[in-house]
């Protein structure tokens, strides 16, 4: 018999401590693999890693940029935690983000020549509603027709992107925009206030921090958070407890969608200021990595969002100073997820090589 393949054996007790360290181990392994990749490409790995991970954040501008990127990631990730805790695999945050940007941005465009303190809150609410409505579609399909939310939420991403595409080249096109695929700019009071002059970091950071705190409160202090947790761990215990499971599905998707929607609105009303085709560098998908890297925990998600945001910045710097494609950022994101899932697996299972005598 050929027994060179190891067999997977469940560990009778998985170490709690190790499972806390998993994200750190994953990051370290990612850096090690990254330096190997860099040296194979002919770069000094120390120099490359410095360019990638240190130099982007060695200035106030760099820190600000890091926070600008981390803000939407953290906000979407904490929203995803509502779904993931309940074992609902919402992969469509990117679509919910886009819809939030469309709804909130639409309000901004409609009032492009009006100023007022009420405009930004109105846009935020509209963004939340847009994201929530888009999130509720897979929820509705799941509860009514038992469809798989992974597929429907993912497909709706492309629908949302095409709607945005249609709007910016069609009805919402800037009349003075020389036919560029973009809308008018929002009025000044439709923009997220900047926190420091000269830096792009904006008020969205506080919204995110507030919503993370809000989520922590929901998760740990409320019946609703408890219900999410129980129905994620054991649906039959949730049935026994008499939780309304459909309601939990709707709520999780609505909250996740609204958070993603607010993140989308914060992007367009923050750094961008108008609507165009590429409002998000895949924040909605990358946030899935952030959510898992942060262990679905509010504090963990904050740290994870910073780490992943750094891969965005590092990729830009690497393109600039090392002439390698910015896609290398995605390589790092992929590596982190790979090592995270691998380490997670090894915390609960071990590989055994059979010794045949």
């Amino acid at each position: 018999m050929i027994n060179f393949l190891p067999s997977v054996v469940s560990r009778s007790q998985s170490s709690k401590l190790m499972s806390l360290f998993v994200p750190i181990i994953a990051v370290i392994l990612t850096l090690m693999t990254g330096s190997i990749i860099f040296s194979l490409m002919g770069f000094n790995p120390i120099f490359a890693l410095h360019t990638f991970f240190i130099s982007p954040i060695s200035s106030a501008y760099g820190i600000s940029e890091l926070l600008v990127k981390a803000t939407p990631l953290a906000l979407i990730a904490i929203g995803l935690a509502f779904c993931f805790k309940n074992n609902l695999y919402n992969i469509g945050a990117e679509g919910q983000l886009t819809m939030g940007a469309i709804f909130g941005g639409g309000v901004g465009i409609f009032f492009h020549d009006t100023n007022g303190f009420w405009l930004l809150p109105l846009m935020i609410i509209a963004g939340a509603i847009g994201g929530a409505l888009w999130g509720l579609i897979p929820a509705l399909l799941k509860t009514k027709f038992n469809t798989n939310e992974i597929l429907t939420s993912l497909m709706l991403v492309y629908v949302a992107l095409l709607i945005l595409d249609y709007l910016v080249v069609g009805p919402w096109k800037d009349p003075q925009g020389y036919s560029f695929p973009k809308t008018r700019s929002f009025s000044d009071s439709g923009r997220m206030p900047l926190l420091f002059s000269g830096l792009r970091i904006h008020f969205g950071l506080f919204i995110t921090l507030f919503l993370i705190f809000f989520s922590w409160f929901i998760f740990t202090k409320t019946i609703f958070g408890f219900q999410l947790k129980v129905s994620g761990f054991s649906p039959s215990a949730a049935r026994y407890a008499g939780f309304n499971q459909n309601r939990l599905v709707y709520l999780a998707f609505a909250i996740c969608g609204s958070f993603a929607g607010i993140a989308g609105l914060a992007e367009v009303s923050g750094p961008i200021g108008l609507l165009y085709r590429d409002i998000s560098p895949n924040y909605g998908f990358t946030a899935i990595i952030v959510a898992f890297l942060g262990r679905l925990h509010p504090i963990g998600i904050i740290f994870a969002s910073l780490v992943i945001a750094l891969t965005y910045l590092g990729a830009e710097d690497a393109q600039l100073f090392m002439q390698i494609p910015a896609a290398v950022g995605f390589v790092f994101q992929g590596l982190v997820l790979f090592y995270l899932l691998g380490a997670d697996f090894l915390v609960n299972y071990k590989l055994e090589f059979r010794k045949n005598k």
Partner: protein
Amino acid sequence: MLNNKYNNHFVEFKNITKKFPRVIANNNISFNIKKGSVHALLGENGAGKSTLVKVLYGLLSADIGYINFNNEVLKINSPSQARKKGIGMVFQHFSLFESLTVRDNLILGIDDQISYSNLQNKLQDISSKYNLPLDLDAPITSLSAGEKQRVEIVRILLQDPQLLIMDEPTSVLTPKEVENLFLTLNYLVKEGRTILYITHKLEEVIKICNDVTIMRNGKVIDSCTTKDQTAKSLATKMLGQKLEDLKTDYSHIKNIENFIVNNISCSFNDPFLTDLKNISFQVREGEIYGIAGVAGNGQSELMDILTGENTLIDEGEIIFNKKNIKLFNPQQRRNLSIAFVPENRLGHSAVPELSLTENILLSQFPNNQFSINGILNEKAIDKYANKVIKNFNVVTPGSDALASSLSGGNLQKFVIGREISSIPKLLIISHPTWGIDAGAEHSIREALIKLSKNGTSIIVISQDLDELIEITHRISVIFEGKLSEPLQTDKVDISRLGLLMGGKND
């Protein structure tokens, strides 16, 4: 006959010690098993029996000590190595593929490669030799618990073990099936095979075992022959305390039928479920109403309807205090002060991944006040959890321990404690003492009786006839989804119950 050293020391446990993070499961365990004997391993849940057997079967390794098997030190680290050495084990929970046939399951269970005709011959051999008739083409789902166990035993016997470990083998069997099992064990022993019989049923030890080792709190209390033991003396050793006798008392029952199930029918159109047919019964205030029956005759389906986890019934009504509650979900029923304990602890009445405190929250009763406007009242929850732990003697390091860290009996005490601490008007409980030790069993039954005396109506669904006779006031039997007329427990005739359980109604 069994007097030389080899025979008397067929299996020797030598100072086996196994520690887990918060508990010493086995503390310096030493005893011998004679060749060709049925040796009972008796003890409560959490006494360390399972750990010891897992060490013997290669599932765990001991921290200190070793096992001599057949006069050589046993060095194994997996069950398949144990099987190669001649040690086989029949687990309490069957590990069979439900949708495959008996034959497929047997083929899958064999470690060595063996030709098909060879297997067929071997099977016929084993079947006839040990009183283990099998229908090889039947799918496992169509078999009774006894038949499934037979498949497990045959699967192990195919490997010709010298030592057969049986973990609580009679817990799911009917009386007739138990007799057949004992017959099989007899044949096996006559051939010189040895059986290690794990149980907490005292009568079985006396009836079929030659020797008994009694464990308590991870230590061996005594290892002796069963000849001069009585059920009572064994119980005393196992529990370390005297058990009070329980009596049926009807005096407190009021003639008010506060729970009425009227003509319930429910068809599922699913071969794995039993359709319920015209089920009717009434429970009076303060009465304990037992529903007996062999597993798989509609008990879990009925339980789901009584708890409100399934409200899609074809016809009939469920009336509680003059209110039709058939469409109420479990929480709505709890709000009327109805409490439930389903059969399955892990993942149903408790979430193993959550702490005991969090598990308290699974069922909220009107007088609990665990949350105010959806926000948890952590103090009240923690207080309730600690009250349950204290009042029901739940052995745990604290209310923050995970439910999965508790032994079956302790978790069941906790779950039942959670439900009855709310002093419900109606308690519906399925298999209250299934798979737990005599000490926990006794305290749970006592708690149920006490509750009924305070005016709570209780419905107990159980396969354990002794239990039902001990605690209930009336018993009816469920068979193929039909419920018999109730019988008065103090005048009940066991043979009549047995007939009803076998589907013979006069």
